[in-house]
């Protein structure tokens, strides 16, 4: 066969392949039940991506502890995964302690081995917090319905890194994937209130969060009371700041029903009620 004929056949086959590709590409997502907008990670990991998303979320917590983290063989692992520190930033840091979950060494191999790995419980501080962000980003990328990845990343970005725009953008990304998430709306409201000092928008967003909570959780046997507590307490503080004291009392009353510390909230209600007659007028709401 002449070389020119071989080249022509090759070109013809290429043209056929290209034409078929353009025609079939439109139908391919239907056959594979995949959305054309799915990310590369989603395509690569398939259904297992939720598992990996969890792994990367835990990785963020490991990074937050600078590698000091129980292994899957330690009893403390399950507890740490369920109640990881990176998701509960407002909780007080435990005192820095040597050993910690490791306990006393069982033998000389265990004792000597500890010289080569982190054995001190610490949390990332200041700008170093940014080191957890890639893991949270990957976790959200793998499982866009993992709301915690968005809220945790946003919290650290706006509170500790001053990256408010990035935090808002990430939260909005989360809201596009989870439009009914009251957790995301609560975090967005906090961003407006704490960082943008925009009480009006914060109120609207928190009220939307409250509505969603009532729609989704109120009928449940075990509702997410922690979120309701957070939303209502924040709304109460906002209304108190804005001078709408009756509204503030109303929200504190709502929070008191689900709060783990109702007596403290009662104290605040009593304080506001004392101010109510002196305020003279009630809020127009």
């Amino acid at each position: 066969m002449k070389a020119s004929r071989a080249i022509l056949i090759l070109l013809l086959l290429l043209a056929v392949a290209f034409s078929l590709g353009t025609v079939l590409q439109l139908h391919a997502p239907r056959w594979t039940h995949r959305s054309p907008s799915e990310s590369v990670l989603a395509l690569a990991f398939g259904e297992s991506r939720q598992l990996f998303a969890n792994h990367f979320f835990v990785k963020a917590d490991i990074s937050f502890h600078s590698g000091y983290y129980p292994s899957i063989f330690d009893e403390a692992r399950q507890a740490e995964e369920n109640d990881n520190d990176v998701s509960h930033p407002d909780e007080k840091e435990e005192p820095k302690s040597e050993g910690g979950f490791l306990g006393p060494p069982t033998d000389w191999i265990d004792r000597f081995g500890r010289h080569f790995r982190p054995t001190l419980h610490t949390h990332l501080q200041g700008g170093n917090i940014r080191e957890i962000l890639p893991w949270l980003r990957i976790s959200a990328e793998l499982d866009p319905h993992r709301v915690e990845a968005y809220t945790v990343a946003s919290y650290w970005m706006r509170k500790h890194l001053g990256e408010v725009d990035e935090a808002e953008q990430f939260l909005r990304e989360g809201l596009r994937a989870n439009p009914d998430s009251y957790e995301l709306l609560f975090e967005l409201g906090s961003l407006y209130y704490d960082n943008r000092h925009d009480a009006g928008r914060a109120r609207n967003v928190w009220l939307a969060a409250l509505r969603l909570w009532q729609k989704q959780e109120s009928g449940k046997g075990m509702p997410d009371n922690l979120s309701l507590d957070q939303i209502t307490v924040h709304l109460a503080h906002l209304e108190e700041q804005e001078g709408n004291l009756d509204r503030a009392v109303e929200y504190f009353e709502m929070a008191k029903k689900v709060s783990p510390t109702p007596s403290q909230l009662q104290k605040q209600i009593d304080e506001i009620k004392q101010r109510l007659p002196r305020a003279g007028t009630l809020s127009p709401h």
Partner: protein
Amino acid sequence: MNKVFAISGVVIKELYRRKDFYVLFVLTALITLLLGSVNFFHDDRIARYLKEICLLLIWISALVIAITTTARQIPAERENRTIFPLLAKPVTRAQVITGKFLGCWLAVAVALAVFYLFFGVISGSREHAWPVLKYFQALWLQWTMLAVVIALVLFGSVIFTSPAENVTICFFAVLGILLLGGHLNTVALGLKEPARTMLYTLYFLIPHLEWFDVRDIIIYDWPRIPWLDCLLATLYAAVYVALFLFAAWLVFRRKVLTT
């Protein structure tokens, strides 16, 4: 000793003639650079994820190079029948074993030096810090750990019939030790007798290669490991290296070399 160095020289030359190292290095560099180009929230100071991935790739690559290079040494000499002129030099079988070990170990050192240089540049360009001594410690401990692995694989290559068999078994053994070795005591405590004693005995018998994995110290910027601990760990590894090499020689000295 010259004969040992001559044999080891041939092994080193073999490493840079083969493509394994280049392929693994290019892959490591490519994946690291690709991940380094990802923009996380417009913050170019984020470095630890990159250090973690780069070090993981270095560890995988170094293990692959060490195990595959070592596993084919003696079987290849036997298959090509070059073992006979080698032993007729005259070179003793102990010198062949020592020379092969030294060659593989030094070849891995060259590969590790290149990998860590790359890691240092990548990490330094992000963090603007150059903890050279800490990197040296990590490199030294990894190289020491690989000495045990190479000695183990060399021992395997005089026991198992095919290099593939040796590579597979050694990979599983080394990965098993790295991932589980340090936790066998915890697992043993939860078992009943006699399984508890058996597992605890295994725990004391295996070389604890996980000690030498100090990636967390590097990634999370923990203080440098005391030099005395590094020295003790090196001595610990030396004992296992001697043990495996001696065992390899015991088997090899009586081995019939004709296939």
